[in-house]
């Protein structure tokens, strides 16, 4: 059913093929100001995926680790739940996709995303939100996302999320060099993209403080009372309106009576 991608950070050699594939397939421009690779690499409206270079201390020296970053395609996507026009939708294949024609441009998805993935085309007259689509059209055809299909180093495993997760757990259990955690298994309720690493995730720029509760839970727990509140508040107000009006009339009448 839902596809997933496992990223084995230990295998990445930092060639950046994935970043190029993304640009090619999605017809997006490179910008000198927004590098797709290196220590300064950051997601942007033009960069749906980047490979960030991290220099980390390990054992008795420093090592380089390259972290491919893109939308994680949450199983219960905060952005999709936050979009008030359904411009962002979670598909059953796994990708969380964006329909530009539905977007109002409120940027609430950017507030909602715990991973700060959605970006905005600030320099355009009619800016749109911009983020990785996990090559939804390719995935629908049974192809792997562009970035996944071009990797020469065997960093990715693409398949059913459940199976991929099992494989990830087996890999880290088999080899003690790995941190004994699959990033994305639980974060924000679980993500389609999963990571395993031999360096603690927080040293690689991952937000490790994200709870396992899907962000949408909080909104849902609030919104579910809306109909009840609206109706009962309406009834109360109507009741009060008539009660106090009547009371005032009676008191006016009685006041008159006294005067008379």
């Amino acid at each position, binding site marked *: 059913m839902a596809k997933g991608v496992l990223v084995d950070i230990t295998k990445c*050699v930092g060639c950046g093929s994935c970043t190029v594939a993304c*640009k090619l397939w*999605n017809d997006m421009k490179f910008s000198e100001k927004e590098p797709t690779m290196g220590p300064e690499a950051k997601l942007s409206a033009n960069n749906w995926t980047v490979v960030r270079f991290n220099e980390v201390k390990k054992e008795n020296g420093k090592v380089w680790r390259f972290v491919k970053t893109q939308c994680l395609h949450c199983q219960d996507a905060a952005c999709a739940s936050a979009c008030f026009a359904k411009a962002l939708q979670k598909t059953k294949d796994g990708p969380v996709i964006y329909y530009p024609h539905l977007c109002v441009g409120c940027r609430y998805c950017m507030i909602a995303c715990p991973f700060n993935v959605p970006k905005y085309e600030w320099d355009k007259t*009619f800016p749109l939100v911009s983020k990785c689509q996990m090559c*939804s059209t390719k995935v629908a055809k049974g192809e792997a996302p562009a970035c996944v299909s071009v990797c*020469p180093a065997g960093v990715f495993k693409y398949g059913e999320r459940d199976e991929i997760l099992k494989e990830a757990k087996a890999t880290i259990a088999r080899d003690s060099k790995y941190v004994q955690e699959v990033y994305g298994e639980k974060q924000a309720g679980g993500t389609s993209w999963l990571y395993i690493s031999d360096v603690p995730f927080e040293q690689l720029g991952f937000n490790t403080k994200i709870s396992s509760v899907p962000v949408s839970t909080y909104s849902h727990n609030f919104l579910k009372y809306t109909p009840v509140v609206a109706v009962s508040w309406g009834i109360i107000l109507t009741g009060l309106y008539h009660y106090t009006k009547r009371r005032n009339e009676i008191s006016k009448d009685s006041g008159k009576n006294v005067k008379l």
Partner: protein
Amino acid sequence: MENRTAKPKTVSRRGFLKMLGGVSLTGVAASIAGCSQDPAGGKGWLPQQYQVASSWPVQVKGRIPIDPNNPSIVRDDKKCILCGQCIEACERVQTVYGYYETPIKDDITCVNCGQCTLWCPTAAITERDEIDKVVRALEDKNLHVVVQTAPATRVALGEEFGLPPGSIVEGKQVAALKKLGFDAVFDTNFTADLTIMEEGTELVRRVAGDLKGVKPLPQFTSCSPGWVKFCEYFYPDLLEHMSSCKSPQQMLGALVKTYYAKEKGIDPEKIFSVSIMPCTAKKYECNRPEMNDAGKHVGKEKLRDVDVVLTTRELARLIKMKGIDLTKLEDAQYDPLMGESTGAAVIFGATGGVMEAAVRSAYFLITKQNPPEALLNLTPVRGLQGVKEASLEIPGVGQVNVAISHGLSNARKLLDQLREDKKQGKPPRYHFIEFMSCPGGCISGGGQPRTSLPPSDQVRQARLNSIYQIDAKIYKKRLSHENQEVAMLYQKFLEKPNSHLAEELLHTEYVDRSKTLTAKKNG
């Protein structure tokens, strides 16, 4: 590609407003009419091989990693089409990519050979362009700008100007450099001859057993910086075999700021030393921290022996930039002091050439007699076969076995064999092995003019033929020890081969780089 390259455009104000109006209207119209209800993305293309179901393997894919700070090569992501050809060159031809384990450490393994720049169909991977530095130096009135040209550039530069592969443009190249404003034009051939003297002497000492325990046989050549780095990465246990001689480029660099400066009375700090090389690894080599022996000698450690290396391609661009038509130039001569060369030097540009040149002079060094005619045309060491070997009889020494490899995948064969032999305690099969990083040797180095893709043996052979033609027919001398300027250098400055000063300026040491990667176990 065009649509992915942002073109700078000048827009008039009226045009700008029109455009804005147009854009707004289209935006509004498109949105209201609901022109496209597709999800975002997926409007581009990918090479065909990637558009298959995820369960099928993809034959040629991805690209090699390149450190953004790589001194030799750079890649323009805009032009990369993920065709996978760089991996073909790096992994299959040079056996670098894919020959180390992941996770990597703190280095992106690269021997700087630049073969990928020849294979890349869109020229996304190119040499690191340093033309600007040279132009600036040439414009600086305070600098004395010296240039040297490698043996192999003279048989390839012409291709950039429409001449057939292998055209010999030695004199025109010198003329062009003089026209560009270089104050002195020297020939790396000169230090190739010098290398033979130094390396030959070292070889004779190894053969004689003078260096027993420290420098065993076989001796490896050390003039290909890509090869040297390869050995440092993957075979550091065999570095004791590596000749301690610097490459001819670095020898000339060290001499320019000492010998030449002294002879001409020029402040070494005012000398800017450029070299024109068929090689991208030379850019890396001149930046190796230890390559400042001239500076150390004169007490200015910051001085580099060679300041900038331009590839043949960069030189061609520089010449074109200045509007000079190479083909129309009158031949000119290299400047004296370090301009003389022999046929033994020019064949450094061909695979097997260093070996052949060394054999000629080793024969002389051992027997005090010039070699017989057969040794002047040592055909077994010539040609494009990956591993070549030959066996010669030298009076007084007996059988001397030599081997040659070019292309690093071929080097592995000899190196693995040697490793195995040493493990089993067998005596060395060879006395001397020549290793060249690039297939064909320097004539098809990573900095040479691009040819058909992938680089063809036809072009390589044409260039090789010209090299041997220069050796046999054009130059007057064919033996390094007959180079008079080399003799004068020893007389005036270095005393004798492997002298103390020669060791200081012309020899070097190597670094064990095995800690920066986890080499894959062979087999």
